[in-house]
């Protein structure tokens, strides 16, 4: 019984933000399903840790800061024939609207919006994506379906990603490149820890989820695997909500 429509065997998958959280787990799951994985992030030690956990052979890692043009150029020059692109790199920001200066918007949009969009633009322009390729943006329910207090900058960056995802889905369809997003609810990753929200508040928030827990990185990685695999060949422009039911 080798039947597995979700297999990634023979695919080259590129994952940004692979040094922690959803990006790391996605890289590991992709390797377990047979993909050759190229991982990137800024922190060498943590990226190496992800690399050490990849299964199988033929993987590679590239250190790069995707908010700089050097970082983007470096990535684009070393990759080729990508079958899958997972744009995970992102950051959080919790701040009430009256404190949301242009500087804060820039900080978040540079990482969450401009970096992945410019990276994808360069990969398309330089023809680095294989025919039949699949692009997955890691968006959020925040700013798309949920509007939590104090989350307006982060939410706006994710709404912008969702919009761009749909435009790209239409514009890249003639190249047989599919473009989708996953939209997670709260996931247990370093992104949500040690910040402005206390552990106690997280615990109370968790109780609001119909499935009574936050997501784990695997929960999101498995959705991404589906969108990368041939099982989703006819799926493009879709936002796959993975949120324990919080937006119902």
């Amino acid at each position: 019984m080798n039947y597995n429509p979700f297999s990634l065997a023979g695919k080259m998958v590129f994952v940004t933000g692979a040094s922690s959280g959803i990006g790391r787990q996605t890289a590991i799951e992709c390797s377990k399903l047979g993909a050759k994985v190229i991982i990137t992030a800024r922190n060498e030690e943590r990226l190496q840790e992800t690399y050490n956990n990849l299964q199988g052979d033929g993987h590679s890692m590239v250190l790069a800061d995707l908010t700089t043009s050097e970082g983007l150029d470096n990535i684009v020059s070393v990759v080729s024939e990508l079958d899958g692109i997972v744009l995970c790199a992102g950051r959080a920001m919790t701040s009430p609207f009256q404190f949301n200066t242009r500087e804060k918007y820039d900080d978040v949009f540079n990482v969450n919006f401009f970096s992945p969009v410019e990276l994808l633009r360069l990969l398309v322009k330089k023809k680095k994506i294989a025919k039949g390729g699949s692009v997955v943006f890691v968006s959020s329910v925040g700013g798309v379906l949920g509007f939590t207090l104090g989350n307006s900058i982060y939410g706006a960056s994710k709404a912008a990603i969702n919009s761009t995802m749909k435009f790209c889905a239409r514009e890249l369809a003639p190249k047989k490149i599919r473009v989708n997003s996953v939209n997670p609810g709260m996931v247990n990753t370093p992104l949500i820890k040690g910040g402005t929200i206390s552990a106690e508040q997280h615990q109370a928030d968790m109780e609001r989820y119909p499935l009574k827990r936050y997501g784990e990185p695997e929960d999101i990685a498995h959705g991404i695997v589906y969108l990368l695999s041939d099982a989703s060949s006819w799926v493009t422009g879709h936002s796959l909500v993975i949120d324990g039911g919080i937006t119902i």
Partner: protein
Amino acid sequence: MELKEFIENFVALFDETDASEIQANTAFKELDEWSSLIALGVIAMADEEYDVTLKGDDIRNSNTVEDLFNLIKSKK
């Protein structure tokens, strides 16, 4: 940094609460208007006015306005 000025910045986060209700020894979480959003406002105000990063737990562990003032002062 001055306590008086800090209290003014703290009071500015509220709309319904009269300034006279907020003193150095006020247990701010007992104020009717206190909310999670105002808590986020305190964190943002500390960052904007004093260049100090507070965490959610810092708010949780503080009781009075002066506790917050001392905490921010110690982090400067």
